[in-house]
């Protein structure tokens, strides 16, 4: 069966009323799960798994996948409105999304997030349909040196995420890298920086750091500024609730960038959508004509990462469905679900279970449309949340944050950690330290260290393979170039000053 007839067959499966219904249910549940911090798609799918065993396999997998990509749509809602990422993948959406909301463009930001998610999500599925086998081979060619170079490239983005002071940005990054090293070391089974606490043996949960450093610190800073009765302005009128034509036009490249970066990073097992969204944000800023405005609420700064984390879904399904390799926690659960139904994801799946494979792929086209229809009308509704007076909203945010932190692990210790990170974030904001580099370091620290040690173990201590492998070398060069960007600016300023002084 070639791709086209396969897809046609898939639509005939996906358009069956029962499957359409399950697709809708999955997308709806996913949106809710995405909005609630702490409750992630992985846990939801695992909880619903036993219920789906009575279902027809195609309906079941269509619904479970709907939860997976639906959660990516919903995750940005609280990022934009409350500076609180609903999922790990939407942490970068806080940077410009929340600033847009602060400028009274909350509705527009939610609209852009939905549109970016739709475009990139669909591009991701198209790519999954068309190039799955060759791109899977590309993913396998990625070895530890390439991963290390990719993570270095990601870390070099720190220069694009810092404010006026590069030193403060680097310090923030180092704190993030240190936090990532807490826990049991995979290679030696020794514990690092656990201070004798067994709760720290598994490392610190990403969501706790993100919610503490972003959302709680924001609330603390707002409380200090007592005059405000409302968190953010919410202008009335429909026009202010939807993105303007100019804003959408500004996002043209971001939609494309997010789609491509998200899909490619998504294909790599073990990279993850948070990394995809960081990289696409960096790319967007690097090519922008006004990079200095990033972080103050530019629509493309939201569209790129939000697109990337949705295109990531299509990418992550490539190794899962064509190789039987799950790249992350959620795809691992989808794999167990498929195995439970007696379907065998792997090289033979397309030929042995065409109904499931093509039915699922086709349902994702439908699901993305469903999510757009589901999410756009919710935009005005969600934007109203900001009308809630602060004396109700702030305790509510604290409540959601605490429940979110507790539900990730079920340990009260994690709530204490949340408080510590809230305070840390507050102090950082107060003393002018950017918080985004800390999150960047925390996301990339662990995979970078691992990839470096794996590379060196593979080459028996030789650094050369990192430079002799073309892809790895290319990415490392790019990282160095990006690191030089601030110095180029410095040199340029000297040059300008020198010229003006002589004139």
């Amino acid at each position, binding site marked *: 069966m070639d791709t086209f007839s396969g897809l046609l067959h898939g639509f005939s499966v996906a358009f069956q009323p029962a499957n359409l219904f399950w697709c809708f249910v999955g997308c709806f549940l996913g949106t809710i799960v995405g909005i609630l911090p702490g409750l992630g798609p992985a846990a939801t799918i695992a909880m619903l798994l036993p219920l789906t065993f009575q279902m027809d396999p195609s309906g079941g997998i269509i619904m479970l996948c709907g939860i997976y990509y639906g959660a990516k749509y919903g995750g940005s809602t609280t990022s934009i409105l409350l500076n609180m990422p609903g999922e790990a993948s939407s942490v970068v959406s806080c940077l410009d999304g929340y600033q847009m909301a602060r400028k009274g463009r909350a509705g527009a930001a939610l609209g852009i997030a939905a549109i970016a998610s739709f475009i990139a999500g669909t591009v991701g599925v198209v790519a999954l349909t068309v190039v799955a086998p060759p791109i899977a081979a590309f993913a396998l060619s990625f070895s530890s040196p390439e991963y290390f170079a990719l993570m270095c490239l990601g870390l070099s983005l720190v220069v694009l995420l810092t404010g006026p002071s590069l030193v403060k940005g680097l310090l923030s990054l180092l704190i993030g890298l240190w936090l990532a090293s807490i826990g049991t070391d*995979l290679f030696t089974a020794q514990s690092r920086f656990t201070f004798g606490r067994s709760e720290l043996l598994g490392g610190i949960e990403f969501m706790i750091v993100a919610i503490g450093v972003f959302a709680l610190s924001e609330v603390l800073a707002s409380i200090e500024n007592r005059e405000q009765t409302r968190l953010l302005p919410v202008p009335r009128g429909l026009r202010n609730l939807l993105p303007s034509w100019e804003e959408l036009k500004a996002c043209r490249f971001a939609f494309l960038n997010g789609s491509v970066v998200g899909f490619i990073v998504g294909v790599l097992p073990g990279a993850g959508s948070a990394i995809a969204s960081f990289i696409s944000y960096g790319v967007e800023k690097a090519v922008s004509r006004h990079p200095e405005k990033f972080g103050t609420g530019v629509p493309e700064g939201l569209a790129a990462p939000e697109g990337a984390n949705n295109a990531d879904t299509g990418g992550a399904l490539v190794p899962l469905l064509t190789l039987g390799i799950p790249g992350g926690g959620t795809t691992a659960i989808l794999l167990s679900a498929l195995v439970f139904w007696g379907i065998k994801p792997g090289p033979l799946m397309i030929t042995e279970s065409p109904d499931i494979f093509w039915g699922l792929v086709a349902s994702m086209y439908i699901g993305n449309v469903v999510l757009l229809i589901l999410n756009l009308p919710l935009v005005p509704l969600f934007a109203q949340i900001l009308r809630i007076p602060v004396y109700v909203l702030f305790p509510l945010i604290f409540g959601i944050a605490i429940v979110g932190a507790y539900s990730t692990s079920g340990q009260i210790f994690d709530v204490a950690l949340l408080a510590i990170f809230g305070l840390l974030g507050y102090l950082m904001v107060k003393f002018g330290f950017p918080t985004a580099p800390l999150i960047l370091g925390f996301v990339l620290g662990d995979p970078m260290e691992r990839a470096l040690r794996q590379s060196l173990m593979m080459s028996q201590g030789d650094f050369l393979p990192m430079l002799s492998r073309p892809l790895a070398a290319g990415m490392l060069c790019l990282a160095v170039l990006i690191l030089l960007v601030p110095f180029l600016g410095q040199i340029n300023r000297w040059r300008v000053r020198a010229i003006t002084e002589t004139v």
Partner: protein
Amino acid sequence: MLKFTLLGSALALLLQVPLAPAMAEFKPTRPIEIVVHGGPGSGNDLFARSIIAIVEQEKLAPVRMQVANKPGGGSTTASAYLASKKGDPHTIGVFTNIWLTDPLLQEEANNPLTSMTPIARMLVEPALLVVKADSPYKSLQDLINAAKEKPGQIKQSGGSITARENIIRQLIAGATGARWSFISFPSGGERLAALLGGHVDLMILEPGEANEQIRSGKLRVLAQVAETRLETFKDAPTLREAGVSIPNVPQTRGIVAPPAVSEDSAKYYEDLMARVVKTEAWKKYLETNFFDGSFANSKDTREFLVSYQDDIRGYLKESGAKVVR
């Protein structure tokens, strides 16, 4: 009947009469919690959920059972939680080898498996030693010879150094003198991707993880880590048949209760599990996952765990890990 029981319990509660001594035999009266150390969807989580599905389908227990996921620090969070439920007859836990190794290696992990009340060993997981289909190593002997020629050059992908795949590597090295390097990856997916991409040379993994790759001709089995050959891979020799005699290092899964639970309740769960393993659904579960159902009762499980802990301590010491207990 139900009405009378309910009435009886209500009366008993009202009068504060202790129920337990009056009852000859333990019966759970509220939902049973099964503690697992993995997150939702992990192997142990699915193991626990499969048991629950069977218990509910066959109506083996009068109450509901639910999974309590306590991930973090390998098994330490889960074992600490289970230990905190000391004497509670409504909590049980799923153990695997990591419950033995964590307390041996980590100062912070101070609830060893041997301090719990063993209920049953439910299954033993065999493993396969595989290479890529286009690998020059056609047999285990090829691999061993090549490893002897160029020590440390051949690479194996796996998880933590405390995992079974590394212990087996150490034991093979000890028995044959063939040394290769072990490279840790956090997830099974990444380990397999490294092998399929040709970045490492071999892997020791569960048959369930490898079966699709073997079936589609992308991986080749050089040896089985099992006492006898598995039906599905009957062409591949066991390690012993391939000429490598090393002690058996079983990867086990079973059920434990918290420390100091009453004998009655331990007996109840032992019987419950004995009934679970007799069902058709359980046999099917073992079959789809290529597990070996070597059930052991409470007494045998205790003996097994105590002696196996000593074995593992020895292996870990040999492999150069810092053993703290």
